[in-house]
């Protein structure tokens, strides 16, 4: 019989303690960010989709070596190049220039293999995270075009 009452007492006490805690939490400041009305700044190392880095002239640093394309586990990079004539010390030389850099972000796992393998330091992660869309095509990025738009 004593056990019965002590259990009722213990039970009610535990419920009151619990209610006290939730009651105190009720007055704590709100920490929720009201997305999309408020946004937060991404940390410096945040990995968004990849982006080409420009050199001083605004051209992509990429030397079209194709290492990123081969390293990518999900084959989401498609490269294209054209050969142009440039003059170095009075002599005309042929040089490969990037003409296409397409990233299929639907398949990208943000693993960082492309950024790491690039020996020209031509790739970086963007801080883009507002990418929701209902159309697949919105995730096929033309990185070269994006670079030109950024320059413009």
């Amino acid at each position: 019989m004593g056990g019965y009452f002590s259990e009722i007492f213990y039970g009610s006490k535990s419920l009151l303690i619990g209610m006290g805690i939730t009651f105190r939490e009720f007055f704590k400041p709100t920490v929720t960010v009201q997305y999309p009305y408020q946004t937060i700044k991404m940390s410096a190392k945040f990995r968004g989709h990849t982006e080409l880095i420009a050199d001083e002239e605004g051209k992509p640093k990429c030397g079209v070596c194709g290492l990123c394309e081969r390293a990518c586990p999900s084959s989401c990079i498609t490269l294209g190049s054209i050969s142009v004539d440039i003059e170095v010390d009075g002599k005309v030389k042929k040089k490969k220039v990037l003409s296409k850099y397409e990233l299929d972000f639907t398949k990208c796992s943000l693993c960082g293999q492309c950024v790491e393998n690039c020996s020209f330091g031509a790739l970086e992660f963007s801080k883009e995270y507002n990418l929701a869309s209902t159309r697949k095509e919105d995730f096929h990025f033309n990185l070269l075009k994006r670079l030109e738009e950024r320059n413009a």
Partner: protein
Amino acid sequence: MSAPIQLRPDETFILNVGPQHPATHGVLRVKMEMDGEYIVKSETVLGYIHRMHEKMGENRTYAQYLPNLSRLDYLGALGYTHGHVLAIERAAGIEVPERAEYIRAITVELNRVASHLFWFGAFVMDLGGFSPLMYAIQDREHILDMLEAVTGARLTYCYYRFGGLYNDVDDDFIEAARRFIPRMRKSLKKYAALVTGNIIFQKRLEGIAPVSAEMCRKYGATGPVARGSGINFDVRKNEPYSVYPEFDFDIPVYHECDSMARYKVRMDEMEQSLRIIEQGLEKLPAGPIMAEKKPKNIKLPVGDFYQAVETARGSFGIRIVSDGDKNAYRLKLRSPTYSNMHLFDEACEGMLIMDALAFMGSLDLVIPEMDR
């Protein structure tokens, strides 16, 4: 008007829990044969989220397989990637700098706390209490923010590399982790008062769903499930790897074998993880984070390699059979919840369905990890 359906007194019916059911927390299907509210027989049906991770491991190079490991268990992903890099490093004979190993241990333990916190919230929600989930997620958010600042991702990390790390931690991270520890300790006290002490919670778990040590051995259950049944086994202590021998921590073991014991093991583990993080931050040596001598394209010598690690859910093993090529000949992942789940069928026979769902919650299932 049709006559009401007449059931024979001994007639049972089949109840499908899942593949879309809030209690399974993922696409798991449990086919239960019910006699009223009681379970007569249960059968777990897997395969709804099978992604052939093992086969992918055989088709990709070792480095390309790195992102896959974090897609197994999305709540405690770092533990799994840790196992993978350790296996490759040992097989290829790569020396890892001490600083890198310390950072790995710290981030793995942070991830373990995050995983247990989410489990705690979801488990209490399964039992009908909603507020603890919100508190747990708020605490977990601090960890995810910290991990995001170093790894660049919030859940599916691809941070460890063969021979080291992708990037170094900065002072902000160390500062944030230091601040987090006392905050989390306070929260653990709050959870103990709010949930562990709660009479309804205790009545729903104590003495419910006994899983004997014998049954754990039979099904190969590990992690908090086995430790809740009195089996003192933790890979971090029994087969030490990484820098774990340097840390002073205990393995919580409970002998009650019920759902409450499994709950308590995880709650205690969070405190032990905090201890490891504390010591790790204290001892964190300076130095490089990447091995100096490291082949660019990793090829393993011919042989058979196995590495086990203790993840948030139990002992995770990765076995790599190599024929000397740049990808594995055979890759086998031994995931803890796969074994833990399988004792459910036997243990839940004769149980009330509500108790069985609480039992399922106490096993801490992550379906993509079981069905990989």
